[in-house]
């Protein structure tokens, strides 16, 4: 149906349903009715029939959460508005993006996945083939390992930065697809295999090596996200999803898996996504995202209008398993209390934490630190500098701080502590 016919249809439908209530010649549309009403008094929705059903929903007009786009380039990113979100699930249209050569235009019908290398039966799977295999769904976070890179440099510690700009390369979804283990069982992996190479069908032909152990344990060939097909910017129609691993390894627009006995050392696991440690070495295949937490409220540019009771809210996650504890400090790190964790606490997923705080109206710094089931405690930035030097560009999972000034203004506060 041509798009411009839709309004006509619904207008006619509306007039039919309301004829006898309002003279059809005078008030033609619901919008007219609302407009008329608005001239006399504030709109009373109990006195005006509401909008009709529609095929696609939309947000309330006043609600406009948006991804943050800083540079419009082929190799670029957009960030999730963490401060606008509640709970743990990221609406699919707000999931962060990181592409290396734009979003390819791929048709579901002609997409194919080739699985070959050290396997008994090299196989091409069409999407319809993959859809027939037993399905799995998992709620898991995805984080770019470059997330938070802007708050690692002592000399360039920002103050006026939003949590979106800072840590918005983090999102959580329910991912649905086929277990990689199911497909590798199908093709029969040969003895001696220990890695896979995953390759995308974008014009960067994104390529990453992933340990076979990992993909056998819990990786998914994902075609669904939050109940619908994966969106084009998330890899439509098929992506690899490696729970808890740095985002770049979850190769989008997946067209090929080669089973190998060694890593391929692609550009994005040598030149990029590696960590020069300051002692003459470069750490490679730093794949797991360590435990991290971030306070999303209050955060810049919020202004607390008055002292009194406020709820500190945030997210915590770990690529090594479940979060077991989140502590909050409201006195610049001198004392810590356990925050409440909102269940269910899932493996390699975000957890919402909350702490009720009676702000006395004085200058203070608030921080959070997460602990995961391995016992790992989110480090301070000094601990990371000590362990890795000051020149790494990825995996900056150190504790963050927000400063609340007596004026109520909230700014990024880590600079006050280092």
């Amino acid at each position, binding site marked *: 149906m041509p798009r411009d016919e839709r309004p006509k249809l619904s207008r006619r439908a509306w007039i039919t349903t309301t004829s006898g209530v309002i003279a059809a010649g005078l008030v033609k549309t619901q919008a007219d009715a609302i407009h008329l009403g608005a001239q006399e008094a504030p709109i009373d929705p109990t006195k005006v029939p509401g909008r009709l059903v529609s095929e696609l929903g939309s947000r309330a007009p006043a609600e406009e959460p948006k991804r943050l786009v800083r540079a419009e380039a082929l190799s670029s990113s957009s960030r999730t508005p963490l401060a606008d979100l509640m709970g743990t699930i990221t609406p699919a249209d707000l999931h962060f993006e990181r592409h290396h050569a734009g979003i390819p235009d791929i048709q579901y019908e002609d997409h194919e996945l080739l699985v070959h290398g050290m396997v008994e039966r090299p196989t091409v799977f069409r999407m319809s083939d993959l859809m027939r295999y037993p399905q*799995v769904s998992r709620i898991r976070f995805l984080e770019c390992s470059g997330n938070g890179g802007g708050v690692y440099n002592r000399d360039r510690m920002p103050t006026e930065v939003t949590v979106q700009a800072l840590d918005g390369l983090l999102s959580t979804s329910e991912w649905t697809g086929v277990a990689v283990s199911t497909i590798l069982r199908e093709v029969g992996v040969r003895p001696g295999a220990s890695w896979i190479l995953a390759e995308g069908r974008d014009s960067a032909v994104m390529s990453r090596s992933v340990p076979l152990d990992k993909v056998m344990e819990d990786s998914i060939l994902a075609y669904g996200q939050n109940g619908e097909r994966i969106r084009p910017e998330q890899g439509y129609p098929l992506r690899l999803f490696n729970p808890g691993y740095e985002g770049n390894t979850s190769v989008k627009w997946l067209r090929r898996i080669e089973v190998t006995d*060694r890593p391929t050392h692609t550009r994005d696991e040598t030149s990029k996504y590696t960590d020069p440690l300051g002692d003459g070495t470069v750490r490679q295949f730093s794949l797991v995202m360590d435990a991290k937490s971030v306070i999303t409220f209050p955060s810049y540019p919020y202004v607390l209008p008055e002292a009194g009771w406020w709820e500190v809210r945030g997210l915590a996650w770990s690529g090594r398993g479940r979060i077991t504890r989140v502590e909050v400090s409201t006195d610049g790190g001198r004392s810590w209390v356990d925050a409440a964790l909102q269940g269910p606490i899932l493996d390699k997923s975000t957890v919402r934490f909350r702490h009720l705080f009676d702000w006395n109206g004085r200058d203070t710094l608030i921080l959070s630190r997460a602990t995961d089931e391995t016992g790992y405690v989110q480090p301070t930035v000094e601990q990371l500098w000590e362990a890795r030097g000051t020149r790494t560009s990825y995996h900056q999972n150190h504790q963050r701080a927000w400063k609340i000034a007596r004026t109520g203004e909230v700014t990024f506060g880590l600079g006050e502590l280092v």
Partner: protein
Amino acid sequence: MRLPATDVGLVSAVSREWGSPLRTAARRAAGLCLVAGLLAACSDGHRGATGGAMAPDEVAVAGTAEGLPAHAPDRFGFGTEASDARVALWDIDVRPDGQGLPPGRGSVAQGRDVFNIHCVACHGPTGTEGPNDRLVDSEQWDAVPSTRTVGNYWPYATTLYDYIRKAMPQLTPGILSDDQVYAVIAYILWMNEIVSEDAVMDAETLPAVIMPARDKFVVDDRIGGTGPIR
């Protein structure tokens, strides 16, 4: 007690044919089964990680874990067997040992022409001016690199072939012939003072190039837990 949400029975069944990584997984899974006193669930041929073998937050319904239900066939047989020609069409990656390199060759002089036509606009006349990634820096480093380029950071020269053939030039990837890719690599390596001006790159010479930063790379040693931060 958390068990890996993997297919316990499946791992055990196929581990005979597999290399060490899987055996580790199988051992771990088996160990956990014993520890958790879930022998029944783990050893009676269940393919599905059901009942106690599932993480507590994941409701134990057969067939919803990564594992397959007990009555699943050994093979489903969906998908089409890929012919050698089909595999060759897409099997374009290149490894440090040279596997995947095509026939062909290119010299530094030929590469200069390729570079000045296809690369200079984004990487600059000497590979250092940008606006996009800097490709040249022959200054080596001890503690930390001040730049991360082919000359002072890349561990393997073969990665240039893998990447340039797949992704460059950024707006028209795939337009270079195999000879042109070898040539432009020779030129980039020469600009980085890694090969001499008369060098020719091909499937033999490229994997033999020793990159200055090669021995600096170490595998991740982070393991989580309560030990020192790494």
